[in-house]
């Protein structure tokens, strides 16, 4: 496999003291969907800004599509497509006009635009709305148009900065379908930032969890969840007798916790451990009063790695008037 994005000790320092990104290293393979996961202010957008030539690199090195970001920014710009978190399509222009303008700014020949624009509009289900002004689009339609705008020049790498920010859950799921289809059909390399854990879990081949400018973990979502110690079993029995010792003695059972008649434990291989657990309870003349399984999600991974949930991080954030403008455009 070939790395299409490579960052080595990438660092960004603002005003000589604020370290927004602190010596991070990672590589993204060709055709991979790579997610940068973290709360607001973690360093996600700063990283994307450095990789897309918007921000200078204070220390370290990065290459995108084989081009050094600091030494050859023009070549990087020719190789990438960007879907920013802001809604930048022009309200007063039609969907197709926005698409054509983006193509022109990327020097795509007219003939190619004539062929590619309808294909992209079909991909994002905007064929019928193409001749309408963007002013009349819903938030989801604007996001889909921006996705098409990011692809009109056939980039080698597509950067998605919070691609579903501000969308309602139903529209967000539709957007996920488009993104999945895109990755499957086009084999495009996608680098995305998100603070929606479910989104990262569903779309990304690998994710990096970033907090306070440092990468805290980097792996596939499945491995990350597995590393937590497996599924969580919650089981209740009809007697107060302490079964912690028995549960802990079973080879595939970890981290047993008791709360009255209810026990919680991690099972890396539930198919091995569960029959032994139930059998042990029955042998002792006890009955199972409740039983449930929780598959670990990236929420648990995030909590484990960062020490707090994403929701804790989000609380208390103020909003600029631009955020309000964007919210209005989402309606």
């Amino acid at each position, binding site marked *: 496999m070939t790395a299409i994005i490579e960052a080595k000790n990438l660092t960004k320092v603002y005003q000589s003291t604020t370290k927004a990104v602190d010596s991070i290293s990672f590589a993204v393979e060709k055709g991979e969907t790579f997610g940068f996961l973290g709360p607001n202010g973690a360093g996600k957008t700063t990283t994307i800004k450095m990789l*897309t*030539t*918007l*921000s*200078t690199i204070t220390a370290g090195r990065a290459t995108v599509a084989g081009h050094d970001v600091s030494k050859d*920014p*023009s070549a990087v*710009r*020719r190789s*990438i497509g*960007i879907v*920013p*978190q*802001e*809604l*930048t399509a*022009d309200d*007063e*222009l039609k969907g197709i*006009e926005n698409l054509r*303008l*983006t193509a*022109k*700014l*990327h*020097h795509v020949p007219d003939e190619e635009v004539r062929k590619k624009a309808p294909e992209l509009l079909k991909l994002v289900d905007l064929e019928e709305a193409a001749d309408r*002004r963007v002013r009349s689009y819903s938030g989801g339609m604007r996001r889909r148009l921006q996705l098409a705008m990011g692809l009109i020049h056939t980039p080698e790498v597509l950067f998605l900065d919070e691609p579903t920010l501000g969308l309602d859950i139903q529209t967000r799921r539709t957007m996920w379908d488009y993104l999945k289809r895109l990755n499957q059909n086009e084999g495009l390399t996608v680098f995305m930032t998100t603070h929606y854990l479910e989104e990262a879990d569903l779309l990304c081949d690998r994710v990096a969890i970033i907090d306070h400018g440092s990468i805290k973990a980097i792996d596939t979502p499945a491995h990350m969840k597995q590393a937590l110690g497996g599924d969580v079993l919650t089981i209740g029995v009809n007697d107060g007798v302490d079964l912690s010792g028995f549960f802990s003695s079973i080879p595939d059972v970890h981290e047993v916790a008791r709360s009255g008649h209810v026990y919680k434990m991690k099972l890396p291989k539930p198919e091995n451990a569960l029959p032994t657990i139930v059998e042990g309870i029955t042998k002792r003349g006890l009955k199972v009063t409740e039983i449930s399984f929780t598959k670990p999600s990236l929420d648990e991974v995030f909590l484990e790695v960062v020490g707090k949930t994403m929701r804790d991080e989000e609380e208390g954030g103020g909003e600029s008037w*631009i955020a309000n*403008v*964007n919210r209005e455009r989402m309606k």
Partner: protein
Amino acid sequence: MFGDTIALTARSLRKWIRNPAAVLPGLFTSLFYLALFGSSFNPTSLIPSNIAGFQLSPPQLAQIKASILSQTFGGASTYITYLTAGIICLILVFNMAFGGIDLVLDRQLGYLNTLLTSPITRASIFFSGVAQNMVKALSLAVLTFMIALILPNGLILGRGFGVVDLVGAFAAFTLFAFALSCAFTALAFMVKSIDSLVAIANFVTFPLIFMSDALFPASGFPSWLSAVSNVNPVTKTIEVARLLMVNGTLTASQAATVSWDFAYLVAFAVVLAAVGYLAAKRVLKAD
């Protein structure tokens, strides 16, 4: 670079034309200044028919008014004839100064970042900003000229005024607009908020207009103001346009004045274009 500049300029102009709320205020400003200000502030209408006990007959009064217009207002047949070049300059100054608001919005809404990450030159971003403001303002300048022509007691062009004079007058307006647009486009890229841009624009536009002979002749100014007015590019632009509009055929000394004013305006445009471009280039580089 040229193609990118054209594409970005076309984008802005398309948005402008499709939004009547953006076009109409400029048009009404011209109309109000010429029709209302031009009529109500006509200085010759202030002359009383009885001065220090001397009762003037209507022909005498008309002759005095004509003399004032001829001697103080550069030979203009009407006050609006004198005023038109000044109002066109005023329209240019205000449109250039406040035209940058769109560019500040582009930055705030993230559009500028999408441009900066596309493979176009920084120069095309800057010059498209310059060009869009120029086209918008000069369109309003042409409309202002036409309004002045059709107004009753409006603009009366000098005998012999022809296409060459029209081109000459608008060449001066274009040079002035280009210079100002370079300065204000760079400023729009430098400021972070619309409030800052508006504050600076207000601080610059009013002195530029009031320290020139856009509305009244400099002969009535105190000496310090007259000195400032003499080097004000607004005065130079107006002088070219006014001499051509009022006189049509120029005398040798008038032609020399026009030539010197053009040289001044070319130098002014070159300096502001260079300063504006370098300032914008600095701001538009990666942070």
